[in-house]
């Protein structure tokens, strides 16, 4: 069972709520995925409309944990402000902290991220930071009070998958007891399976499901891949080797060739 900030979750998938063809399809995809956590992007202007309108009602009515995110924030101050708005709007102290440093790659600004994480953790937030696979940054985030780390696989929405598996492997090795979630850049179910095989605790997705031709079927496909990768990791994966190993003993058998 996955435990994040004391909350037990049966699914190891976190799913975003943006960019679906319609809220009806979004809802069906979320249900099909079996996810227990959905992320919700909170644009400041959305909050300008009071409780955020009917779309947020749809999300509240899903009956899953809501993880508001600070997507689109470019400074620590902006992110902190958005997180506080989200706490009021969704009555949760969880927040996916995202501070964008670069407009085109949507790469996290790790300096502002650590700064915002310190402030939010001190304020009682349970912070899920979207970060790079940098170990030093990860340590600073843990120092700041984060109980979960969410390194990227590749840039948000790029569908490139795990472009730097070595860094993700060393991150897993350095933080064996911290829940690690691969966030951003996954495009295919096999990418999610790969992340889980590396020993990651969960994956967070949005575009790969929302942008699929059939988001509902894709949600199911990812859920299956995550289970497969997780089970595979627990079952003990074989290390690759250079030479063939016969699966049946050959000694003592007749050789016909």
């Amino acid at each position: 069972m996955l435990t994040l900030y004391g909350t037990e979750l049966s699914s190891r998938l976190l799913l975003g709520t943006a960019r679906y063809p319609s809220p009806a399809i979004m809802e069906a995809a979320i249900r099909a995925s079996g996810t227990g956590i959905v992320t919700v992007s909170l644009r400041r202007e959305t909050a300008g409309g009071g409780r955020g309108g009917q779309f947020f009602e749809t999300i509240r009515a899903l009956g899953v944990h809501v993880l508001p995110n600070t997507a689109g924030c470019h400074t620590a101050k902006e992110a902190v402000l958005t997180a506080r708005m989200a706490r009021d709007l969704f009555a949760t102290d969880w927040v996916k902290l995202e501070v964008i440093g670069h407009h085109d790659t949507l790469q996290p600004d790790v300096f502002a991220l650590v700064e915002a994480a310190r402030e939010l953790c001190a304020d009682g937030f349970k912070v899920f930071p979207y970060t790079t696979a940098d170990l030093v940054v990860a340590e600073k985030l843990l120092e700041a009070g984060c109980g979960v780390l969410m390194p990227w696989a590749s840039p948000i929405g790029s569908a490139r998958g795990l472009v730097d598996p070595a860094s993700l492997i060393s991150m897993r090795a350095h933080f064996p007891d911290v829940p690690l979630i691969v966030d951003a850049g996954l495009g295919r179910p096999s990418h999610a399976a790969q992340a889980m095989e590396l020993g990651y605790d969960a994956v967070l997705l949005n575009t790969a499901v929302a942008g699929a031709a059939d988001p509902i079927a894709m949600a199911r496909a990812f859920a299956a891949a995550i289970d497969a990768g997780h089970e595979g990791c627990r079952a003990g994966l074989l290390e690759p080797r250079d030479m063939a190993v016969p699966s049946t003993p050959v000694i003592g058998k007749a050789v016909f060739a």
Partner: protein
Amino acid sequence: MTILVKGAGVAGLTAAFALARRGHSVTLLDPKSPGMGASHYAGGMLAPWCEGETAPAAVVEAGEHAIDWWEEALPGLVERKGTLVVAPPRDQSELERFARRTSRHVWLDEAGIAELEPALAGRFRRGLFFRDEAHLDPRKALAGLVDALTSMDVKILTEADERAFSHIIDCTGRAAIQPGSQLRGVRGEMLYLRTSDVTLSRPVRLLHPRIPLYVVPRGEGRFMVGATMIESEHDGPISARSLMELLNAAYTLHPAFGEAEVIETGTGIRPAYADNIPRITGEGRHLAINGMYRHGFLMAPALAEELAARLQAVPQRRSATA
């Protein structure tokens, strides 16, 4: 049968038109001037196949007939020039994806794009051309329907007593968004640019993973640039970020837009159902057309005709019609 149509946006005006054309006695009610709601900010693209990228098949099918409907209702207003879809070099995979999800298009190379839109010559290597699509100026279309209704003796009032009518058709769009209505609002922001340095003949869509944008020529050097899609019912002025993103995208389409004048910005709230498909609801003497989402001009004709056919089919009322 005396019919009160509430709401004079694209849904109400087309419904009133379809009903009046069949000889019904129709009164149109709107506390504001006709066509000043979300329809006022519409793109006016009659682009069912492009919309098919994300819209369900029902929208594409109903939308196919919209072009002929508008042409017949308001002769001379519809421009049958198709739609051009392009993407910046680094977003070419978006173009491939768009092509896979849509139909009735052809691939164009650089020369093909230059032939259609000389202003874009040399700017894009490849594009998609949706030959059968069309566009119109929504504000002219709404005004044209008002004129046509007036000439058919449809009264347009700012207040009326509902009890005086046998049928009430609620086309109030955004005003009908209430808890329990199944409707939600989707905020859209747009702007108008004016420049004589760029000439386009047809709507051009610029694909981008974050901010897909369209530029629709409105004549006399004016271009409508739209439109954001934000899950919110907040109707305050356009945000700086949206303005910046729309302008950025226009600039990517053609740098000359950088020198254009921003002559108008606007925000509208699109009413939508959870599946984003507009529909007729209600029964008896109370019916409603709502949930036009981003498909008002595309879907309103089909719904107006369906409504008119439904009222025509009520046998006991037929004697009351002219």
